[in-house]
């Protein structure tokens, strides 16, 4: 079995940020990622990011990924990157099993950072298995990574930031977005994102959801229906759109499976997106020296994922006896950045969720 200092599972914004700080502190690091390249979801984000300069605000997502990856280059002697490699097992004795192609490998890692991110939620409706019903992430992958448009006309289901951004990106790719429907009574994402789509003539219908997709071999139309204040369908409000894409963007759930496998203590926190590990203030789980960062500990923005990653790298290094030369200053800085990023109205869910998770404060 291969012995390593620190294994980071997931090479997205959180994992890459964790790697950088841990490498600076002198750890030997391995990053395992199931995708063909590092960067996680950032590599298909073509829009400019929010936040402040420290989180690369106003930089486009794929450029943020490049910067995070480039910063690891100086540490290449202490860094091993395993791409197209899936961590399929995590055990109580710090053994991680990976699968690359048809080869299983076992590692024992002194510390482990889980940065697996989140996966898209699905939506149950009639014919949701017809070709042409896509998750928003798949649409982004096709368009922004592979340069393939998934169809000609689209109905977007969900008005969170992903739904709004992917609608905009579909329009940039030349797809006609017929409408955005949102089951909640209010638009979920940033109003600036909503406004920049609305001003191009795309209507946003709140209190409306998808009833069924229609088609024989693929989506040919989609039927929507309005919802009352109790989220019950209002008969007679059905509306049919002729379309070949129904794009689903109804939220994300933390990818908790590895944590659950190691019997790490978990709790279901709706505000954080689902099942998340119970952690201390530095995101250390009930399994000593196993840390989490990014969407796996609560669905948020890439900005906070990067800061959480840096924090995890910093603490992991200290716990392995290789304190980062700027430990104290960095610790203060990361905690302050996180608190600043969560300080606005959009941070409420995370603030409430984390309080519930840690069982302190004025949790609802």
């Amino acid at each position, binding site marked *: 079995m291969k012995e390593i200092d620190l294994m980071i599972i997931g090479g997205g914004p959180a994992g890459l940020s964790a790697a950088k700080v841990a490498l600076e502190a002198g750890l030997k690091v391995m990053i395992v990622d199931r995708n063909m390249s590092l960067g996680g979801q950032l590599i298909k984000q073509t829009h*400019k990011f*929010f936040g402040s300069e420290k989180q690369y605000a106003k930089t486009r997502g794929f450029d943020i990924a490049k910067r995070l990856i480039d910063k690891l280059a100086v540490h290449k002697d202490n860094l091993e990157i395993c791409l197209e490699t899936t961590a399929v097992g995590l055990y109580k004795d710090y053994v991680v099993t990976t699968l690359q192609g048809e080869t299983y490998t076992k590692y024992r890692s002194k510390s482990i950072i889980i940065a697996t991110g989140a996966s898209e939620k699905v939506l149950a409706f009639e014919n949701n298995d017809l070709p042409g019903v896509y998750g928003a992430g798949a649409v982004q992958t096709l368009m922004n990574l592979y340069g393939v448009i998934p169809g000609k006309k689209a109905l977007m289901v969900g008005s969170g930031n992903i739904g709004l951004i992917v609608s905009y990106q579909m329009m940039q790719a030349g797809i006609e977005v017929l409408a955005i429907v949102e089951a909640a009574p209010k638009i979920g994402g940033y*109003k600036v994102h909503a*406004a920049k789509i609305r001003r191009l003539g795309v209507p946003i219908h709140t209190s409306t959801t998808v009833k069924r997709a229609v088609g024989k071999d693929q989506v040919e139309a989609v039927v929507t229906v309005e919802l009352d204040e109790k989220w019950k369908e209002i008969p007679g409000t059905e509306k049919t759109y002729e379309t070949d894409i129904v794009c689903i963007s109804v939220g994300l759930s933390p990818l908790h499976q590895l944590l659950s496998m190691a019997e790490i203590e978990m709790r279901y926190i709706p505000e954080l997106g689902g099942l998340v590990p119970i952690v201390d203030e530095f995101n250390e789980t009930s399994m000593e020296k196993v840390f989490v960062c990014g969407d796996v500990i609560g669905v948020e*923005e890439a900005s906070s994922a990067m800061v959480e990653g840096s924090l995890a790298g910093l603490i992991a290094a200290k716990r392995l006896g290789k304190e980062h030369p700027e430990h104290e200053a960095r610790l203060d800085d990361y905690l302050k950045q996180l608190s600043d990023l969560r*300080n606005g*109205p*959009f941070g409420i869910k995370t603030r409430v969720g984390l309080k519930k998770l840690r069982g302190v404060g004025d949790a609802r």
Partner: protein
Amino acid sequence: MLDKTGVPTDSLVRSRFPDTSFLVKPKAILECYEDISCNPCATNCPFKAITIADGLNSQPVLNPELCTGCGICIYSCPGLAISVVQIVEDKARFKIPYEFLPIPNSGEVWSGLNRTGERICDASIINVTDSKRQDKTVVVTVDVDKKYLYEFITIKVQK
């Protein structure tokens, strides 16, 4: 209304315009109506004309005395929520962010759209910039009739 439709009300829009006496010179219009964790407009303004109360989570406020209308904020705003406007005789001259193809050329006439995407007027393309630091957010200078000052928001190619 903004919450449900993505369209700000007329009074909300007007609240972001300085007094028209300022508009003899170009001034930034900050159409950011929500407290989100974001500050590049303020940190990138070379004239310190944009203030965010707590530094990150409040809506930006423009000091029209300090704003020169340079337009750096237009492409610094990740939400594409900033334009610059000046009144030039009977025209309102806007600088707006634009991220679609085709990119307009000066001299062309495009459709001017309001905040719900309806065509309201002709929009004469005066200038187009696409420098490296704009990072692919093209800034289009466009003239529309002055009476659309509070309605015009973007352009669409004429079919």
